[in-house]
């Protein structure tokens, strides 16, 4: 059997995340320009890499139309000034878009098709509200292939509360509060300085620097959260406070083969140990990371106890709590989302994966840990998990 090459994560960067809609900082900025900014920052930070040595540019977007269309990886590479000899393409696995971009690029690297690759994602949910222009096949409903609620992510979160009654509104709100508090601390820590690139954006108020996430709420309290109305079901438990807001953002990461690191002078930070995707019932999509996590741990032959940092996406507090309960991790385990999560920073669907990996690399270095896990749930009932090992 032919041997696969080791794949390393070298660097990852993101724009600040903005609120989707006319009041958000990126409302008058194009999605592809945001991705270009992230890619150019990545190259600026790694000046020893000759851009023509990039083997592929893989960019994820859930809505692949308008300013996110035109096989985005290629579009972004050309706009970023990467030589035209470097190819690119677009991928979509909804919320796991960027993680899928990483694993797709990793596959190319492992098989020797590329030595270095850029992988990332962008989602301008202001320009492309989720599900807009989607034409659901009526068979899904007529044949009861999926429950109708599967199409609305907030409803799937309510479904999780139904399925796991032990996860109460109070637990969800407490998790959300902790996320906000950890994020406030993280913005005075070095992690955001290292992973977020400020971008000048044109707005109704003129040019400004988009340099902070617009979802930070340092003033959050349990009382405040308790007072919020359920957003998806009368009497429900999912609110704007314990879920991630609609977000504009872009990310980009640099991956390389072990064999290429020295040649192009790149310092690796993480080794990709393994990854897994899993499918679950679409109307309980939030549970997806549970089987994906189990599968990747089994592949690598390690246990959760050996993992030092866990970066889980937080579209809904209930979704993370489901994962915690199923895998036996405390919600306040210090390894879990040490810098807060999507509740406090936002979740630009296909872009989020790289944020998790970049923060994981920082967290493992800060804690001198060894293994780390990045995981996300995915619309239409899937989960993704990548296992990493710190190097250097």
């Amino acid at each position: 059997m032919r041997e696969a090459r080791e794949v390393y994560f070298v660097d990852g960067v993101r724009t600040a995340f903005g609120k989707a809609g006319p009041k958000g900082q990126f409302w008058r900025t194009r999605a592809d320009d945001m991705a270009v900014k992230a890619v150019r920052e990545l190259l600026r930070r790694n000046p020893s890499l000759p851009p023509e040595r990039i083997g592929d540019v893989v960019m994820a977007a859930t809505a692949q139309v308008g300013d996110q269309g035109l096989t985005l990886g290629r579009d972004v590479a050309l706009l970023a000034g990467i030589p035209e000899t470097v190819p690119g393409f677009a991928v979509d696995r909804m919320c796991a878009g960027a993680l899928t971009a990483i694993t797709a690029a990793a596959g190319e690297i492992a098989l020797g098709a590329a030595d270095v690759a850029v992988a990332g994602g962008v989602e301008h949910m202001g320009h492309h509200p989720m599900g807009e222009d989607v034409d659901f096949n009526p068979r899904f409903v007529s044949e009861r292939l999926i429950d109708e609620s599967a199409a609305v992510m907030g409803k799937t979160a309510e479904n999780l509360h139904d399925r796991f009654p032990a996860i109460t509104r109070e637990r969800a709100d407490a998790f959300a509060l902790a996320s906000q508090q950890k994020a406030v601390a993280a913005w005075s820590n070095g992690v955001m300085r290292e992973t977020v690139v400020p971008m000048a954006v044109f707005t109704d108020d003129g040019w400004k620097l988009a340099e902070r996430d617009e979802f930070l709420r340092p003033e959050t309290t349990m009382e405040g959260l308790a007072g919020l109305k359920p957003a998806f079901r009368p009497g429900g438990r999912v609110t704007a406070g314990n879920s991630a807001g609609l977000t504009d953002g872009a990310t980009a990461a640099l991956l390389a083969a072990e064999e290429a690191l020295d040649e192009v002078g790149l310092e690796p930070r993480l080794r990709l140990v393994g990854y897994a995707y899993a499918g679950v019932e679409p109307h309980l999509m939030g549970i997806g990371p549970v089987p994906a996590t189990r599968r990747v741990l089994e592949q690598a032959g390690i246990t959760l106890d050996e993992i030092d940092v866990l970066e889980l996406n937080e579209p809904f507090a209930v979704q993370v709590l489901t994962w915690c309960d199923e895998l036996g991790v405390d919600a306040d385990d210090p390894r879990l989302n040490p810098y807060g999560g999507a509740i406090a920073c936002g979740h630009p669907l296909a872009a989020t994966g790289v944020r998790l990996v970049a923060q994981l690399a920082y967290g493992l270095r800060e804690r001198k840990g060894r293994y780390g896990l990045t995981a996300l749930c995915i619309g239409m009932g899937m989960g993704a998990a990548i296992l990493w090992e710190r190097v250097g």
Partner: protein
Amino acid sequence: MAETVFKLRRAGTVALVTIDNGEDHRVPTTLGRSAFESAISVIDELERGDWTAAVITGKPFVFCVGADIDELGRVEDPREGIRAGHGLFSRIHALPFPTVAAINGACLGGGLELALHCTARTISSDVRHVGFPEVALSIIPGWGGTQLLPRLIGPEAAARVIVLNPLRQNRLLRAKEAFELGIADRLLSPVEFVDESLAFARTLAIERSDPDWSDLETGVRKTRAKVDDAVHGATRAPYVALDLIAGARDWTIDEGYAAEEDAMTELLVSPQARAAAYAFTVVERRSKRPPNLPEARPRAVTKVGIVGAGLMATQLATLFLERLQVPLVLRDIEQSRVDAALESIRSEVKPFLATIVDGGTGWEQFEGCDLVLEAVFEDMDVKREVLADVRRIAPDAILATNTSSLSVEGMGADVGLHFFNPVAVMPLVEIARTATTTDEQLATAWEVVRQLRKRGVLVGDAPGFVVNRLLTRMTVVLMDAIESGNTVEEVDEAILSLGMPMAPSVLREMVGPAVAQHVLETMHASWPERFPVAPATGGGRRTQEQIRDAALEAVADEVQHVLADGVVDDPADVDACLILGAGWPLFLGGAVTGGVVRT
């Protein structure tokens, strides 16, 4: 009209100021009264705050295009407006921290003066419009431009930008030229232009060399000679601007400002400046769709035929091929002429276009043409005959004629498309409609002219249309003078002293005396009294002033006839024709409404 607002945001310790009018790039940002009020409040904040630097930039694709030309035309007290600009800009200049103008788009006139008052400038490499158009409008850059630019890039380069470029069809600078001249300190890529300008403002590493004033007198003399060649003293603005640039060597900046105030106070109310402001608006308006154009859908033009292979036909074929990029055929009675034309065309155009142009002596090749333009010599019978031949082989084609004076309908053409020589340079096309021109034919003619990137003016099917009719009427006066004892040089000088771009004798040589005579005869046939074929004698030798007055009087009189005959719908069309087709300078203002020639 959108109001310009200065918007201040904080980027760390750097102030980020945007000049924005809330519209997209099609409505460029100008500096009017409201902009000043908003700028003052932003400068107040800059003076109060603990900033380490400021970056001033514009909305996407536009930095600032300077004073609002409409407002300029209405000013009651010019000195006050100029002083307000000096006051505002000198406050920017005096800020206690470095200021950077990040020139992200069009940067003209007062916009460039604002930028020059900053400590340094960055420019985005895609910017194509940087400059001072003031002198073309018979005024000067009065908000410090004549003083700061020579101090930055030296008097010679400053004179080129401020004085000479406006007289060369208002030539503007591209980003690279502005950078190489030293107007901008950094040439940056557009992709992260504002981010990189912020980074530049934080470090502000500038390398500049001192301007060279050593040979000011020679430079001024040379520039003045070029100005004389261009305007023959007919407008004061370029001379005044040159004096102000030269004065910058010895004046303090306040003395320079005062000199600008004096100069602008005089120039703004001059007839030339008022005429130029009017003419500028007329020409700009002509770039848009005229209200009298029918709503009909233009026909798609997928193949073009040109009848003739002479000098004019060759130029026309090259233009049509380059701009429409569709197969083109041309026809002449002699194959050798066709071959020469094809060779000339193919050497001018891109390789692919060279493969879709062909020609011969037969008519079959015109089959399938959507548009055929005849450009054979000015003989009614010949034109009638070739157009009939075309009509037989291409019955559906729109037949157009480039005739300069003959009846479009009389020769059997559908529409007139009268181009001016040299075709590549002259912007005007007189689009002549006849009583039988259909809406579709007219709409197609208009669309084709637009695609050729020319300025179309709709005219009636009257002998000489507008430009040749008026110029020929003027020529009659000039010929009379020569017949009565004036030299050709005296007549030329009389017309050049109006600021005309070309001496009448040179123009006549270019058009060809035979053609000019033919045009005169055509006009004579319709209006024998106003267009006598034989020059009148008597009255003796005239002074230059008499020649000039008589020429203008004749033009003014003929304009009345053009209007009375309904050749144009809007009197301003006459002015547009003279500016775009005869190259009359803006400061003459055409011949009807705002101009020096008044009726």
